[in-house]
C-alpha cells in the first residue's frame, strides 16, 4: 500500500504538483471561508492550521480536518488522476525552448503563491520574508558552502544594502523631515526601485572588499573573526550616522516591494547564483575549498576566485537587504546583528551546504517553522535549535547537501509518453 502510493506519486511531474497546488489554492479561495466557519474556526487558518493548533489545542481536530479537506485530499485526488495528462503536457512543454518552458513554470508557481497569499496580508508578508530568506541563504551558501569559509558578515552586507536602498527611495520619493521633499513623483518609484536595489547591492559588494582582501592571506577562524568584526563595524557605523537617524532606525520607505517584485528578484537571484556555481569559477570555488594549494597548481587564480565570490555573494545579500527594508518599511541597525546571523547560518546549515536546492529547503523550512511555532513564544527558540542540533548530528552537512540544482531534470516529464517511447 505504502509503496504503491509512493510509486504512483513518483510519477507526478513538477507540472502536476503545480497544478495540484493551484487547484488547492483556488479551492481555498472559493470554499475556504464557509468551511472554516462550519468547522468552528473563526477564519481561514493562515499557515495550514499550525497557529490555531498551538493557540487553542481544543481545535486541533477541526484544523486537521480543514487541512485534510482543503489541501491534502483535493490535491491528492487531482494529482493522482492528472498523471497522464500532466506528463503529456510536461512532455509537450519540454519541447519548447528552455526559456519559454521555465517562464511558464514560474508563472504557474507565481499564480499559486498569489492565489494562496491573497487570503490574508499575513500570508503575503510570510511569503515575502521567505523569498528574501531564500536570497540571503543562497548568497551565504556561496561563501560558506561552495567556498568553504565561515563568513559571519552577511547581516552587515544586508544592512548596507538595506540602508542604501532606503536612503535612495526615501530621499527621492517621500516627503521626509530628514531628506527634504520628494524629488521625483512617486509614480516613478516602481521603475527606479531596481536601481535602488542594485545600488544597495553594489555598496554591499564594496563593503565586501574589507573581508575579501584579508581572505588572500588567511582562512578559517581568522577570516570568521574578520567578517564578524566587519558586521559589528557596519552595525556600529549605522548607529552613529545621524543622517540615517542612528539607532532609531529609518522608516517610511515607500511600499514598493510587492509580491511580484520580490518573486521576480528571487527568481533572478536563484538563476544567477545557480549559473554562477555551475560555471568555471564555481568549480574553482570548490577547488579552493578542498585544497587551495592544489587548486593553485591547477592554474586556478585563487585570488580572483575569492574576490569574485565575495563580491557576488555580497551583492545578492545587499539586494536582499534592500528588499527586506522595503517589505518591513522600517530598518534599524540592531536588526542586523548576531540574532540575524544565527538565523541565516541556521538556514544554510539546516538546508545543506554546497547546494542551491538545500538553501531553498533550509530557508523555506526555517522561516515557515519560525512562523508556525510563533504561538509557543519563547519555546520556539528551544525547539528550532534542538531540531538543528539533531540535523547536525545525523546529517552534518545539512538535509540536501551537495546536490546540483538542475532545471532540466526538474521540469522533464516523469513518465514516458507513448509518442516518445
Amino acid at each position, binding site marked *: 500500500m505504502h509503496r504503491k502510493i509512493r510509486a504512483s506519486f513518483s510519477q507526478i511531474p513538477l507540472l502536476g504538483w503545480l497544478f495540484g497546488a493551484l487547484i488547492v489554492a483556488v479551492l481555498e479561495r472559493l470554499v475556504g471561508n464557509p468551511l472554516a466557519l462550519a468547522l468552528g474556526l473563526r477564519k481561514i487558518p493562515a499557515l495550514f492550521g499550525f497557529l490555531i493548533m498551538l493557540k487553542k489545542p481544543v481545535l486541533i481536530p477541526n484544523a486537521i480536518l480543514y487541512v485534510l479537506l482543503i489541501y491534502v485530499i483535493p490535491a491528492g485526488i487531482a494529482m493522482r488522476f492528472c498523471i497522464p495528462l500532466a506528463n503529456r503536457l510536461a512532455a509537450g512543454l519540454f519541447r519548447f525552448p528552455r526559456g519559454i518552458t521555465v517562464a511558464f513554470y514560474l508563472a504557474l508557481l507565481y499564480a499559486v503563491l498569489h492565489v494562496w497569499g491573497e487570503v490574508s496580508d499575513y500570508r503575503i508578508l510570510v511569503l515575502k520574508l521567505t523569498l528574501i530568506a531564500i536570497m540571503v541563504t543562497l548568497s551565504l551558501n556561496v561563501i560558506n558552502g561552495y567556498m568553504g569559509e565561515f563568513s559571519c558578515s552577511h547581516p552587515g552586507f544586508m544592512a548596507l544594502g538595506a540602508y542604501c536602498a532606503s536612503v535612495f527611495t526615501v530621499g527621492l520619493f517621500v516627503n521626509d523631515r530628514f531628506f527634504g521633499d520628494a524629488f521625483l513623483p512617486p509614480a516613478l518609484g516602481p521603475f527606479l526601485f531596481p536601481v535602488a536595489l542594485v545600488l544597495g547591492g553594489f555598496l554591499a559588494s564594496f563593503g565586501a572588499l574589507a573581508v575579501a582582501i*584579508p581572505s588572500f592571506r588567511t582562512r578559517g577562524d581568522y577570516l570568521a573573526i574578520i567578517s564578524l*568584526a566587519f558586521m559589528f563595524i557596519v*552595525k556600529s557605523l549605522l548607529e552613529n550616522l545621524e543622517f540615517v537617524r542612528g539607532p532609531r532606525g529609518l522608516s517610511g520607505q515607500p511600499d514598493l516591494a510587492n509580491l511580484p517584485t520580490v518573486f521576480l528578484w528571487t527568481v533572478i537571484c536563484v538563476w544567477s547564483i545557480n549559473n554562477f556555481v555551475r560555471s568555471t569559477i564555481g568549480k574553482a570555488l570548490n577547488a579552493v575549498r578542498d585544497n587551495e594549494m592544489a587548486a593553485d597548481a591547477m592554474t586556478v587564480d585563487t585570488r580572483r576566485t575569492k574576490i569574485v565570490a565575495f563580491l557576488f555573494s555580497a551583492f545578492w545579500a545587499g539586494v536582499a537587504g534592500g528588499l527586506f527594508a522595503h517589505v518591513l518599511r522600517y530598518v534599524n541597525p540592531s536588526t542586523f546583528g*548576531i540574532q540575524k546571523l544565527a538565523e541565516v547560518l541556521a538556514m544554510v546549515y539546516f538546508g545543506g551546504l554546497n547546494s542551491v536546492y538545500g538553501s531553498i529547503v533550509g530557508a523555506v523550512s526555517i522561516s515557515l517553522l519560525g512562523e508556525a511555532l510563533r504561538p509557543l513564544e519563547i519555546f520556539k*527558540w528551544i525547539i528550532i535549535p534542538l531540531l538543528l542540533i539533531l540535523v547536525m548530528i545525523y546529517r*552534518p552537512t545539512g538535509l540536501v547537501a551537495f546536490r546540483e540544482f538542475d532545471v532540466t531534470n526538474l521540469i522533464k516529464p516523469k513518465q514516458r509518453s507513448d509518442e516518445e517511447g
Partner: protein
Amino acid sequence: MVNFFQNFINALQWGSFYALIALGYSMVYSILMLFNFAHGDIFMVGSYIGFGVSVALIAVASSGILAMPNWLILVLTILISMFLTSFVGIIVERVGYRPLRNAPRASAAITGLMIGIILETGNLALFGARRVSFPSLIETVTYNVGGVFVTNKKIMIVLVSLLLTLALHQFVRRTKWGMAMRAMAFDFAVVPLMGVSLNTMAALTFALGSALAAVAGVLFGVAYPVLDPYMGILIGWKAFVAAILGGRGSILGATLAGFLLGFTEIFVATIFPSTLRDLIAYSIILLILTFRPHGFFGEPYSARLRL
C-alpha cells in the same frame, strides 16, 4: 594623568573578564581545533548559578544554622559555581560536540551556537524576562591613591583572574593532565593511540573552561550586580575575538589579548564619544588581523597540505 590611571584600573577590570572567558575558548580550541560558541552563554549560566548559590548560602547563614562571614560566602560561591558550571560544560560537550567529532568543523560551530540559544531561552523560560540582581556580598571600600579611586572589588577581580591564569598555566605545564592536554594539542590523531582518551581530554578542557567562565560570571555579578539572560552574548563574542587575536590555542596570548581588548574599549570610550566604542575597537582588530592574520602567538597560515 590621574584620569589615565583611573581608566587603566577600569580597563584592567574589563580585561580580566575578557581574559577569563577567552581562556575557555582557547583551551577548547587547542584540543578540538574548534571554538565552543556556547561559551558566552556558559558564562551567563555560571553567573546565574553563582546567584543561586549565593542566595542559598546567605539564607543558610542568616538562619543561624551555620554562621558564615560574607567573604567566606563569596569564596564558597565561587568554588561551588565553578564546580557546578563545569558540569554544564561537560554536558555541552557531550551533547553538542562529541557526536560531531568527525563532522565538518562548521557543523560543530552551528551546534555550539544553537546550544547557546537554548541556554539563553531556557534561562528566559525559567526566570522570566526580568533581570535579577546579584546580592552584594562584600562592602565596597574605595581607596584614594593619589587621586585615583580604587575599589576593593576591582583589586579582587584583577587579582583573582591573574591568579587563575597563572594556576592554569602551571596546571598545563606541570601536571600529567596538562601534559596530556599539550600532547593532544600537538597532535590529536596520534596521542589517542598512546592511551590518552580524546573524549576524556575534551571533557576536561570543557570543564576547566566552564569553571573559569563561572568565576568570570560570579565576579561580573559582584561588579555589575544586574544579570539578564542575554548578558553572555556580546561579552562572549568579544572574548572570542580576544581568543583569536591572541593566537588560537595560546593561553598566554588569550590572556594578553583579553586585557588588550579591555584597554582598547575603555580608552576609545574615554577619547571618543562612547557610541563609537565598538566601531573603533573593531576597526583596530580588523587592522591588526589584516597585517597579522594569525594573531599575536598563532602559527601563520600557509596553503600547505594538512592531514
